[in-house]
């Protein structure tokens, strides 16, 4: 046992969370694949507690108080039990006779470990950095829970409704273990947020954002996204957190990303853009995957808020983004509505999966705007009046409705005459587009097109100046 606990003692001596977390890992380190097995073989069910206690008591490298060493004994013993289950599951799977509750047993043991951590941290027995070790442990718990749920789902497909509900189908949880894990994370979150230690260096408040991120990940996976709002709300209600910019970059980027996506899903695009932009700016330059994830939401966001289409080099950076957005962006630029509809329909499965479909759909307005603008430009100029020069001559601002209708039909759109008017009306109105959750778009100063429709003359009368705001005409 002495030898098996040597890595722990070394790690503990560094007083850093990461090395200790590395010791409490459900997978052996690459350079030492037999570590878990050796650790397991170093003791047995009966003696484990005594063994660990003995080693920690008589160690020379680290000095800890009685209380702390007691806590570690508890934690290491529960870790040993978890390792035992992991090895049992591994052996079973190697022999091809994996029982349906094998991973559940691993999960339960790992949950005990996590709970022990929580218990001793809240009891004040462990040093301040242990909160991050707990975070790593909890993250492992999340992965193990997902695995256990997969196994449970495979083993029993349907459950019988045994309750006295009036209806046939019961709402038995699909992700039972992950839901359970989410409750554990909630406890950890409360543990961090509620720390009253006045010394900020020792405070568990430094763990708030990384645990929040863990919760976001879990809730997204559980398709219970709305629960994330509670987390954000608690953080925003907490006034005495350390300044956000002092938190590690990794925590900040992920937190901003998730809050951005949450705002995005609530159609608060202004807030979403702000958060995602912050995440983008702080993101580590070579973290390609993270950057592409951020852009997946930032690009649709900016299409809505600023009517801005991403430039080619940005898309070229990531093949994934190019594949997702490339065709759409080309059609928007050209004002090709039929092409846009096709690209949207083709990309639908992917868009829906990323939850950006309904937002991207709205960028059809920009494609339409670009088409109408072409009609306007093709209309040419009014005749020169006295005193006017070539330079300041004015474009024809009264455009027959049939021109717009013709342009739409040339592009392959089957539209009725009244429908053309409706589309034009939308372009004029669009700044105040219905946005039921938050009328954030109201704050935007400009519409897509300026002018009015005159039915009597079958004309669109456009503003002499800035008929299509933001496009230079």
């Amino acid at each position: 046992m002495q030898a098996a606990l040597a890595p722990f003692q070394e790690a503990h001596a560094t007083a850093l969370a990461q090395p200790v977390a590395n010791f409490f890992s459900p997978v052996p380190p690459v350079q030492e694949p037999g570590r878990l097995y050796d650790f397991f073989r170093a003791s047995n069910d009966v003696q484990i507690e005594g063994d660990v206690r003995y080693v920690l008591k008589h160690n020379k490298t680290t000095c800890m108080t009685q209380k702390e060493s007691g806590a570690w004994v508890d934690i290491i013993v529960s870790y040993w039990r978890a390792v035992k289950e992991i090895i049992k599951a591994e052996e079973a799977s190697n022999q091809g006779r994996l029982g349906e509750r094998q991973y559940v047993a691993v999960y339960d043991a790992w949950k005990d470990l996590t709970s022990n951590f929580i218990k001793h941290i809240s009891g004040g027995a462990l040093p301040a950095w242990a909160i991050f070790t707990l975070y790593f442990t909890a993250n492992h718990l999340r992965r193990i829970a997902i695995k256990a749920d997969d196994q449970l789902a495979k083993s029993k497909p349907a459950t019988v409704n045994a309750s006295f509900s009036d209806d046939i189908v019961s709402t038995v949880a699909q992700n039972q273990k992950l839901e359970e894990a989410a409750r554990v994370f909630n406890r950890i979150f409360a543990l961090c947020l509620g720390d009253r230690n006045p010394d900020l260096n020792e405070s568990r408040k430094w763990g708030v954002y990384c645990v929040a991120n863990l919760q976001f990940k879990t809730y997204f996976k559980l398709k219970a996204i709305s629960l994330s709002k509670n987390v954000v709300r608690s953080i925003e209600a907490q006034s005495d957190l350390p300044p956000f910019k002092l938190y590690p970059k990794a925590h900040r980027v992920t937190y901003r990303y998730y809050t951005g996506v949450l705002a995005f899903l609530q159609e608060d695009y202004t807030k979403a853009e702000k958060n995602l932009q912050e995440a983008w700016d702080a993101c580590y330059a070579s973290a390609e995957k993270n950057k592409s994830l951020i852009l997946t939401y930032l690009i649709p966001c900016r299409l809505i808020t600023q009517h801005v289409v991403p430039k080619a080099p940005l898309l070229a950076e990531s093949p994934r983004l190019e594949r997702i957005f490339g065709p759409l962006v080309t059609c928007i630029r050209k004002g090709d509505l039929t092409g846009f509809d096709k690209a949207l329909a083709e990309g639908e499965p992917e868009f829906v999966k990323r939850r950006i479909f309904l937002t991207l759909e709205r960028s059809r307005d920009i494609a339409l705007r670009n088409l109408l603008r072409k009609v306007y430009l093709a209309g040419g100029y009014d005749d020169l009046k006295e005193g006017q020069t070539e330079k300041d001559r004015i474009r024809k601002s009264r455009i027959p409705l049939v021109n717009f209708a013709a342009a739409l039909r040339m592009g392959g759109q089957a539209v009725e005459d009244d429908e053309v008017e409706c589309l034009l009306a939308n372009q004029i109105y669009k700044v105040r587009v219905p946005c039921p959750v938050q009328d954030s778009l109201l704050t935007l100063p400009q519409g897509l097109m300026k002018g009015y429709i005159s039915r009597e003359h079958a004309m669109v009368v456009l503003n002499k100046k800035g008929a299509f705001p933001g496009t230079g005409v």
Partner: protein
Amino acid sequence: MPTATSAWGQPMQPPAYNAVQPRTTLQPASASSNTPAAASKPKKVEWPPAVRDYVRRAFDPESAIAGVSSLEMQTKLKETISYYAERNMQDSIDWTTYPLPQELIQEERRKAALMSPTNNGFANGLSSLHLNGANAQANSSPSTLKKRKSQDSEELAQQTQAILPPWRRTNLESRMTFAEGHNEKRQKKNAASDASSKLEQAELEKRRQRFNLGKAGNNKTPPWGASARDEDEMPTGPVVGTNTALEKSYFRLTAPPKAETVRPLPVLEKTLAMLTKKWRAEKNYNYICNQFKSLRQDLTVQHIKNAFTVKVYEIHARISLEKGDTGEYNQCQTQLKALYAQNLGGNPAEFKAYRILYFVYTCNKTDMNDMLAELTPADKTHEWIKHALDVRSALALGNYHKFFRLYLQAQNMGGYLMDMFIERERLVALANMSRAYISITLRFLTDELGFDNDEVCREFLESHGAQNIIEEKFDEKTGKQYRVKIREAAAHFEQLRAAAFSKVDIKGQI
């Protein structure tokens, strides 16, 4: 800090027993306890209108007296009317002048206080001692009582004379005659077999006695309880019904159902035929909804999952849509979704279309996204689903012209669903048009907004406070013409639009 956990725990682990108390209706309690012959088969009491009115007044919040809880009042009320019912003296009492139960209680208290002014509590204790029917009510939580109060008095009066399901007829008697030692034995047995805590177990057992087990009283062994061992497993196994009555009032289960109260499949099939016929003839939604709920319950407790089940839910969903009962509709829709997943037949396409339209109504983008993710390419080409998808995309793009065309083309119950948000979308379109046009003809507005005729359109504008913008003009060619100076009401329509989106009913949503 608000904990997210509480939000989780609830829906995911439904309690095996619902903690809802059954409605303690005003059945002749003392009658059944005093005369055992009547107890086994209590006569159905037909309450005269005067008594019903008396009950109504008793429940009227205005006649409430401070210090007399509604629980005490109900007990007293029950005691009073059953006293006379039992002696067939209902008609000899002038119910309009008879003191209300709360007044009786007050009077009693006053007398008790006079007799022993120092021992008020004792007097109260005494009075509650002889109220033998109070047990069940004493257990009901304040929230259920409150809920009851909010029911309208008419319904309440109706329920006093409603036919009681058999298991409730016996409940009082069984409560009175249950041997104490017997209970304890049963409790132990169950506690051992079940993983739930002892406390819970005891609670459950108490409930079971209260509602279910006329067994000890009449020595009839229900089919599911052939042996003690079977009985322990009872909640998991399906019941096979033996009841042959076509009609049955809905009653929320709080204990395992008894076979004699449950109708088997052949009877249920007849019931459904009878109900659809009745619905067409009478259109009495309260009755139909109640019957359908009991029908669904009987299917559930017998674990019947087949094409018939699907049919029942479909018909109930359609009826509730027709009546705009979104709560009930959503319950059916949730079930249907799961039933369709098991390929039991029915019309999945129709109900997928409804779901899409419903999400349009609730503006639930998250659910809409999930819905779109679920649709297969084949689904998307289906006529009804395509219609619903077109409605969705027309609204998403603000294409009100197309939207109102689609409204007029809606099939099945789609029209009823679209009715739920048609007014809102008209306001959106008006807000939109008021920015794009300065003045338009009323006829154009009628056409664009899918109104039946100019008159309806005009009424719509007037009822939304826009009467001022309609003007009468004389045109040489067409004669008299109405024009709408729509630009002038732009800000007004914008306000109405925003208000229309701020309230969306989402009860029981999937």
